[in-house]
């Protein structure tokens, strides 16, 4: 194996150093720290309040939040967005939720064309999807206390519609909303958690005089559509 | 009640009046005070610059000197913190360490002593002036002294305490830092004084003479109308002692 000697050098140095026990000289914190109680206290009780918190937090990170009772009813606000932005081309992933919505909308508005990442591969995919300004994607989870959505690549099989479009519309099932990141990582299995991204609103920067500007290199707009049930 | 006086070297040489005022206030409150002969310096200036070997004998001397007192009071947060928090890390002989462990809990900064030990709630004091308060770093962050001096101030009739902007920001003294990086130190004290001036106070009060000396030095040159007062000075003045 290449540069095995560096590996051994480094590991040996580390092992040698660690023969000396460390003395963390700060005021010794408790041996085991548990924040479950505190998290419980601060988490809104009941689904309604949790969703309300999620909505507030999404808006705090400059996302938009829309609630619809069923997945297919998401088509109405989506079409409104398309009309107001003059959108005719939409990117989607190949997930069932996105495909369902795409089909439903296409039936009524034939002018709107949907492009699924499944139909493109490798370089063709990045070339095609960088030109599409609007996308519909599906979140595996949403995190209420930080207004974030979670995309797991084992499910989405892509991240191009999530990042290359200007305006990303995210479908979230109400049952997939968790209270905080701690809860999220108890729900995710280790395999899935290796390839994923947590997103809090549109891309941004404050690198110039700390003035916050949205739409850095990723999406400029992020709309979360939360639906209750599929039917 | 009898207390032993721990007089920081800075006070001994430059701000004797502040320590005298502390004595007057304590006596007025019927506390017997004792000056421990032979005390010189706790070693803080050397310690903060990394001269551990020079500090060890001073620490030993200090611990032996103050060993048998029930209360040790100093008009300085940084000196108290030096003994309370930093002597422990020195490589001292076992028997000295043992004495030190007993001593640690008996040493107090002046305002801390008045409020937390004597439980002082009322004083007959008047001071018809606007003042602001500077939170000295060691007192604030190592001894958690923030409320005590304010409580004392608010016991004084006619006084107006105006909190300055960034009252807990370092004044820039830092011992040898004040001349090692004098430009930075001056920039920091300038900013502190800017905040004092903006508060429109006539006096800046604090618990550490080192900070006050630094601030006063700058004010004298740039805003000579504003004066500094140690909490002991303020109390003595307002109580007419």
């Amino acid at each position, binding site marked *: 194996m290449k540069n095995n000697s*560096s590996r051994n050098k480094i*590991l040996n140095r*580390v092992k040698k*150093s*660690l023969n*000396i*026990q*460390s003395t*963390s000289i*700060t005021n010794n*914190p408790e041996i085991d*720290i548990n*924040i479950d109680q*505190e998290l419980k206290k*601060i988490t809104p009780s009941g689904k309604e309040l949790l969703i309300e918190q999620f909505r507030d937090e999404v808006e705090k990170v400059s996302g938009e939040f829309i609630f619809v009772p069923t997945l297919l009813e998401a088509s109405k606000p989506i079409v409104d967005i398309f009309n107001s932005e003059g959108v005719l081309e939409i990117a989607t992933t190949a997930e069932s939720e996105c495909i369902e919505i795409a089909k439903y909308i296409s039936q009524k508005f034939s002018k709107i064309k949907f492009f699924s990442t499944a139909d493109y591969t490798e370089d063709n995919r*990045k*070339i095609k999807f960088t030109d599409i300004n609007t996308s519909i994607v599906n979140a595996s989870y949403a995190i209420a206390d*930080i*207004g974030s959505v979670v995309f797991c*690549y084992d499910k989405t099989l892509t991240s191009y519609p999530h990042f290359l479009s200007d305006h990303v519309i995210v479908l979230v099932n109400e049952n997939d909303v968790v209270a905080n*990141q701690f809860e*999220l990582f108890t729900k*995710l299995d*280790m395999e899935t958690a*290796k390839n994923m*991204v947590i997103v*809090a609103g549109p*891309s941004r*920067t*404050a690198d*110039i*005089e*700390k003035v916050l500007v949205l739409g850095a*290199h990723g999406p400029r707009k992020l709309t979360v559509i939360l639906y209750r049930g599929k039917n | 009640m009898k207390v032993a006086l721990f*007089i920081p070297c800075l006070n001994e*040489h430059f*701000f*004797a009046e502040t*320590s005298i005022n502390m004595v007057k206030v304590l006596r007025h409150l019927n506390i017997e005070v004792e*000056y421990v002969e032979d005390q*010189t310096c706790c070693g803080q200036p050397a310690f*903060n*610059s*990394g*001269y*551990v070997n*020079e500090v060890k004998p*001073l620490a030993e001397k200090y611990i032996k000197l103050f060993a048998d007192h029930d209360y040790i009071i100093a008009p300085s947060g940084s000196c108290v913190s030096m003994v309370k928090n930093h002597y422990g890390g020195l490589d001292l002989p076992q028997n000295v360490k043992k004495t030190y462990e007993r001593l640690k809990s008996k040493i107090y900064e002046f305002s801390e002593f008045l409020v937390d030990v004597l439980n002082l709630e009322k004083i007959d004091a008047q001071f018809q002036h606007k003042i602001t308060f500077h939170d000295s*770093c060691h007192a604030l*962050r190592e001894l958690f002294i923030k409320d005590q001096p304010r409580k004392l101030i608010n016991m004084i009739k006619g006084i107006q305490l105006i909190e300055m902007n960034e009252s*807990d920001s*370092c004044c*820039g*003294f830092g011992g040898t830092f*004040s*001349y090692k990086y004098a430009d930075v130190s*001056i920039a*920091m004290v300038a900013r502190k004084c800017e905040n004092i001036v903006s508060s429109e106070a006539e006096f800046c009060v604090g618990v550490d003479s080192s900070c006050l000396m630094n601030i006063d*030095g700058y004010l004298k*040159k740039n805003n000579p109308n504003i004066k500094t007062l140690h909490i002991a000075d303020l109390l003595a003045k307002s109580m007419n002692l």
Partner: protein
Amino acid sequence: MELSPKEIKSKVKSAIKDDSLRKAVYNATVSTGVTRERIISEIPYWEKLRSKAHLIKKETIDNLDKYLELFEKKCIENKINVHWAVDSKEARDIILKIAKEKEVTRIVKSKSLTTEEINLNDELVNSGIETLETDLGEYIIQLKKQAPSHLIIPALHLSKEDVGKLFEEKLNIEYTSDPKKLLKVAREKLREKFLIADMSVTGANFGIAESGAFCIIENEANAHLSISLPKIHVALMGIEKMIPDIKALPYFLKLLAPSATGQKSSTYVNLVGGPSREKYNEGPEEVHIILLDNGRSKILEDQDLRETLYCIRCGACLNACPVYQEIGGHAYNWVYMGPIGITLIPQYLGEIEGKHAPYLSSLCGACYEVCPVKINLPEHILKLREKVVEKGASNIFEKTGMKIWSFAAQRTKIYRFLSWFPTKIQKLLPNGKSFPAPGYYKERILPEFDSKGFRKRFYELERSSKNEK
């Protein structure tokens, strides 16, 4: 560019004179501090988070060899190539080798202090490879050919007018100082670059041992585009960035964002667990991670200073530091600055070469208050000062003065004599009130010696009160 903190003293002097820099630095650090306070007030378990994160880091660093071996094993299982670099040069060589082997001509970089530490960009550019910074702050300073002046906000020292002029000159656009318009320009220019780059070079905030994956945290999405468009992704990570498992990650996520930018959460938390092309038909065919030592294993040797390896590079200590607030990051002349910087400088450069660094602090303790992993920075700064003295590297006058002071203070009578002396000669000095104290008295009037001293006054007081009775 090659940075060396040896010139700290002169850099500090020039920083103090730069008014516009100081204004920019002060405003940025204070405003971040304010938003941080606000966010933390909404997290009642903040102190517990800090303690927990400290414990996790302690566990990881105290068992670093095991976690590194586990991480390597799992990464390889995930088809991530693992490399080990003893020092900067080796890390640069590894990256260059990968680039040359794959005939890379265009690299996009996301913000990585570690790549600045190893001085990577110059080497790549000198080898004929276009190397573009994509984080807006880094993009700006790359154009300006400057080093970053803050851990998190690299272009903090520049005003929007400065950036406007820079873009006008270097990018041939009409002058504007509107941050929105300036960002739009950068976005358009860089979007093309992401699409045609052959390789990306990034850092990594955390390496997750049990998963064999690593985490990249950002706000602009430039890191995400960098890691998901080019065919090759190379990540450089200091060996101290390990955490044991994915369940440890949320503690750090919750601490990092408020500490670094005053946000509740960073906009993007990317987890990379292997090359995506095979599984998902897009993105990198190859993912490499380079584990960098470059002095870290040496820091491990000191059982107290080892704690400085817990640093998660959030920059909170910079924002809280009243010294940093007055001078900005360039004064430290190195990639790591502020309170954490002055503890790392002597550890990397050597105690004698880096001897001025630990004294660039008033020991106010504000850094320790805000450090999300509870690194006792003031203690470490003190320890490093002790080392300077131990090595005999301190100023000869100061050393002599301290020795005399200590000698006298141990012997009360000598002390009293020596303190009496200056009170007499003070009156003889031209500016009666001042004593020579190098530098101190430039803007400050020194106090007068009390002619009697406390002890004498105390006994006088005793006598007079006895007489009254």
